[in-house]
């Protein structure tokens, strides 16, 4: 008669794929063998975690199809189980797993799509409040704005890739046109954001990436703009800033920060 601690340890090992004779002996077998009864749980754990990953990484799932995704996800679940019960927070290591997964080596962009899916998942679960809105800037003198710091809002992040990941993402949508996407279309950078009802992304030019990353790295607006201009003299600060503010990409201004 195993104690509860030993039983749960043995059960956990069984779920991880080990054969545990002590556990099989503890379970009543009849018309259905003890081992078969135990396997219901092993299969459920795998299938349900694979399903959770498919839901968190819908673009990867759409690209490779159900069977391949299950195999790739199973290899991940056997290595890394959730550390806490919220399944939306499971899968942080999945993009790295995709990058290392041999059978997916023929799809070099796949790990970047996994990073995009994960970023969208994180943005979706970030707080919607605490964002800078255009009206917050109405009374702010432009020369003050130049000297201010505007870090990104919670959940906002930049995903850069040598592949056209926005076009690839679009090609996986249900009802997408059957037009092919060529990897030769080159690199892309996306600003992933929480929005009121969902999460989404904006495509950024290289100068915009430089501007956004500088701001998120605590640079002042002036420094960030100068860096962007030095990368591309055609950088349109007005259009970029308007687009970012409209998308509520920045965190709300600190109430007590000096100069406001």
């Amino acid at each position, binding site marked *: *008669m*195993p*104690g*509860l*601690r030993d*039983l*749960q*340890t043995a*059960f*956990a090992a069984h*779920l991880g794929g080990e054969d545990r004779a002590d556990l099989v*002996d*503890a*379970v*009543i077998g*009849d*018309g*259905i*063998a*003890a081992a*078969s*009864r*135990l396997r*219901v*749980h092993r299969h*459920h*754990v795998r299938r*349900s*975690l694979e399903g*959770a990953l498919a839901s968190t990484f819908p673009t990867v799932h759409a690209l490779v199809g159900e069977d391949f995704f299950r195999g790739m996800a199973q290899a991940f679940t056997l290595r890394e*189980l*959730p*550390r*806490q*019960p*919220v*399944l*939306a*927070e499971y899968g942080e290591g999945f993009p790295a797993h995709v990058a290392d997964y041999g059978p997916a080596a023929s799809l070099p962009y796949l790990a970047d799509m996994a990073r995009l899916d994960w970023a969208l998942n994180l943005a*979706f*679960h*970030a*707080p*919607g409040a605490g964002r800078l809105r255009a009206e917050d800037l109405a009374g702010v003198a432009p020369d003050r704005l130049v000297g201010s710091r505007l870090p990104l809002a919670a959940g906002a992040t930049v995903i850069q890739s040598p592949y056209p990941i926005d076009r690839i993402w679009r090609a996986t949508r249900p009802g997408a046109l059957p037009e092919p996407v060529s990897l030769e279309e080159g690199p892309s950078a996306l600003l992933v954001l929480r929005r*009121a*009802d*969902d999460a989404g992304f904006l495509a950024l030019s290289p100068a915009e990436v430089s501007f956004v990353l500088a701001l998120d790295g605590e640079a002042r607006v002036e420094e960030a703009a100068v860096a962007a201009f030095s990368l591309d003299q055609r950088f349109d600060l007005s259009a970029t800033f308007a687009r970012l503010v409209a998308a509520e990409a920045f965190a709300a201004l600190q109430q007590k920060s000096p100069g406001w």
Partner: protein
Amino acid sequence: MLPAAGIGLRSPHFAEIARDRPATGFLEIHAENYLGASPARDGLDELRRDYAISVHAVGLSLGSVDGVDERHLDRVAALVEHLQPALVSDHLAWSVAGGRYFNDLLPLPYTQEALEVVVRNVDRVQERLGRQILVENPSCYLAFAHSTLSEPEFLAELARRSGCGLLLDVNNIVVTAHNLGLDPIDWLRGLPAPVIGEYHLAGHTVNDADGEPILIDDHGSRVGEGVWTLFGEVVRRFGAKPALVEWDTDLPAVDVLLAEADRARDCLNAQEGADARAA
């Protein structure tokens, strides 16, 4: 909460329910889907103006020998504090061992040792939440040879010692009784009616294991007729209590779910009527 019949709120139905606000007794959510800030949680804040809410946790792992994960409990407590739900519940099961979460409601041996563990964990949860929780009977696919108590005996003793209530999942009784060769009516004997605070109803599927039929609690179809029959018996014995229809796999249209809840409500109303006539 008045005895009412409600539906499990599932995210693919969220937008339609938020828009149409259909009449139903209450909405039950899974706590773990609302612990992060998301548009779903914002939406829930809107819905709770019009609906009573029940919080059904799936991850507290009340049967873990390691005790309850305090970090997770804190998050559930914050949600409960915010929502002020009518009911809070989780399962007689474990899903965490050695810091790993298995996403399954894993079975316990029904022993005095396990009872002490679950009583301790339920005590801790009720202390942290500052309120009673309901503990649900799980779907069983196996039984341990060294169990010394039946499942209903274990639940009754758990309720007596911890002060928790019970959530009777009628579909789970049918699934467990079939899979373990028990009589579902026998299973009901000896359960204390006053501590039962909620009923669950759901569909199950029949699968095959070693050439034998095994019932799988997949929440993927209408409530089976056998479950409705047992529900009638449960309500007759234990009285009208809030009843919930759960559907998680192959989700139907919202109307189908609402119709199932209406059928449950009719059962509750019939019992209320019978009780009134008797009184």
